[in-house]
């Protein structure tokens, strides 16, 4: 008999297995949502949000005079599409602070004697300082610079482009790649990795911690004994804070010893930021834990959160290259703010005032996640 009970393969039995599998798939809503959500999210993020040649980067102008040559230079830089002058600094120190805070990617300084030197043919100079913590961001803007600036200057003097050949080399564009003069990409990646590693492990471990209690039935007992939701939350969260501390030490030591990443800022400031960041992460994991019914679901939710964090935080791809909506999305990810802090402190030597806003953001996340976690937790048995 064809479909006999003894045959190696039976369509009826395969059918039974398939039907069972689809029913289970439909019941597990979160998994189902992930199967549709993750590819869609990847498609949108990779397709629309990521741009490796960011344009319209915020720049500060330090111009000592407003002669026609200076203006010609500024408008030429703007027409390249790379520079957007939205800060006009009065002094070099002010511009320096803007860059340390990460408000601008470039500082363009046109000296006071620029016009005089142009007219005398006395090799005029402009200074472009680029934030090279992410070498990729600055490279496009810098590479187009020499030609554009020279042509603009010649046009301003009424010379023909053909005659420009002879005059080339007259203008000197001095480029300073700040914080990372050699353009070593590890300097950008390795501090960022600390954030990514913490995000991945902290959220994942805490997200399964509480779900495991629920899944194994120990949660009911825990609740029946005299332990409050706050105690249970702290009891779950604090051990992972310790694990996070160990990770921080390992990654920072590796950054120094293996990759030679400079550490110019204050260690205690960085550790404070790390503490707040890790606290936000474990609380996020705990919040996921109160939502997921199984450990599997908890892992899926963790991954769902992890993906945009990697793509939109500025870890892999320049934050400034993303469209506005993606930047707003990036702002609501703790990793985005942490990356700014750690890069600023390690590479730029930023002090507390320069990173205070970003730390403030992390504090907001901590409060938010703790609140949601506590509110959600109370409901679990009722």
């Amino acid at each position, binding site marked *: 008999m064809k479909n006999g009970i003894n045959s190696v393969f039976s369509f009826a039995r395969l059918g039974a297995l398939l039907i069972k599998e689809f029913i289970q798939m439909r019941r597990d809503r979160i998994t189902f949502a992930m199967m549709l959500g993750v590819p869609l999210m990847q498609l949108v993020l990779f397709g629309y949000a990521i741009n490796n040649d960011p344009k319209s980067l915020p720049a500060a102008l330090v111009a000592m005079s407003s002669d026609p040559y200076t203006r010609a230079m500024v408008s030429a830089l703007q027409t390249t599409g790379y520079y957007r002058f939205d800060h006009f600094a009065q002094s070099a120190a002010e511009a320096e602070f803007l860059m340390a805070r990460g408000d601008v990617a470039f500082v363009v300084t046109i000296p006071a004697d620029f016009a005089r030197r142009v007219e005398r043919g006395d090799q005029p100079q402009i200074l472009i300082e680029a934030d090279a913590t992410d070498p990729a961001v600055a490279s496009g803007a810098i590479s187009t610079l020499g030609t554009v600036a020279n042509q603009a200057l010649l046009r301003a003097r009424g010379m023909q482009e053909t005659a420009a050949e002879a005059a080339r080399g007259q203008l000197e564009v001095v480029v300073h790649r700040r914080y990372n003069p050699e353009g070593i990409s590890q300097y950008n990646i390795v501090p960022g990795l600390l954030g990514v590693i913490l995000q991945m492990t902290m959220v994942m471990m805490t997200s399964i911690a509480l779900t495991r209690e629920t899944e*194994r*039935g120990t*949660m*009911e*007992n825990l*609740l*029946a*004994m*005299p332990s*409050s939701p706050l105690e249970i939350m702290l009891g779950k969260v604090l051990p992972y804070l310790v694990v996070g501390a160990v990770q921080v030490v390992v990654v920072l030591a590796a950054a120094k010893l293996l990759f030679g990443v400079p550490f110019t800022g204050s260690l205690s400031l960085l550790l404070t930021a790390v503490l707040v960041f890790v606290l936000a992460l474990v609380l996020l994991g705990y919040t996921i834990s109160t939502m997921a019914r199984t450990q599997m679901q908890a892992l899926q939710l963790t991954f769902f959160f992890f993906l945009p964090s990697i793509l939109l935080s500025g870890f892999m791809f320049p934050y400034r290259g993303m469209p506005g909506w993606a930047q707003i999305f990036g702002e609501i990810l703790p990793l985005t703010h942490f990356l700014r802090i750690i890069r600023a402190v390690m590479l730029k030597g930023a002090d507390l005032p320069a990173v205070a806003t970003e730390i403030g953001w992390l504090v907001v996340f901590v409060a938010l996640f703790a609140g949601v976690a506590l509110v959600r937790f109370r409901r679990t048995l009722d």
Partner: protein
Amino acid sequence: MNVIDVHGLVKRFGDKTVVDHVTMTVAEGEIVGFLGPNGSGKTTTIRIMCGLLTPDEGEGTVLGFDIRTDSLRIKREVGYMTQKFSFYEDLTIAENLEFVARLYGLKPLNEHVARTLGDLGLTSRKDQLAGTLSGGWKQRLALAACIMHKPRLLLLDEPTAGVDPKARREFWDEIHRLASGGLTVLVSTHYMDEAERCHRIGYISYGRMLATGTVDEVVRNAGLTTFVVQGPRLDQVAAALSGRSGVDQVAPFGATLHVVGSDKTALQAALADVEKEHKGVTVTPGETSLEDVFIQFMSGSKDNMG
């Protein structure tokens, strides 16, 4: 003062009423059995009493503490044993007990743990991982953990499910020993022999408390008549009996049939007919058992639901 004193408890999950106006009193030192089919609301009622759930309606006290506002104090004085084993399988017996002792703030820690291990005969296995224990030993660990802090009330939710008869017997001996020391016990169960070991029982079905009292009272109040039928070809006799007016239950018991009905005259008439139709069949009056009563309750409440 009653240890448990609750009135009109109602608990709904969505549009399903799981506990429907349950009223219950349990006096100090009593062992009260809580019976009912699966999904009848036993677990939910017990969870309300130990403060794990807040009732939608009704109020009451457990150990004199209000179940709505004083759940933290109730938790301190109650020992609750969950239906499913809910201790840490990756911890040893001793580590589990130490964890519980610390949560209750028992001092000195080692003394409490050692005494509890000794009392329940767990000392020789104290370093064994809880996950590797058999059903009976797991249950013993769970009981140890919930009596260690010397609670005044023990709430046991189907404590002997999946436990062999010997372990069950030992478990019940332990419960009676504890009760003689003044501990009050509310225990839910499916087993009739266990119900008969309780001072009093309560029967709950579809969230409603249908009967309370001693086993004798519950059986007597049910108003059932039972006859025992003996003879050849009892399968045919059973088929002939079921469905006749007056016959509510026909159940084979070894070489006999128990025939139960609530209307004594109708039942006798039906039996007389069958006795005539089948040769060699004898009918003698029998004693109604608790099980007969429960089966009657269960089929009765199904009718209500239908």
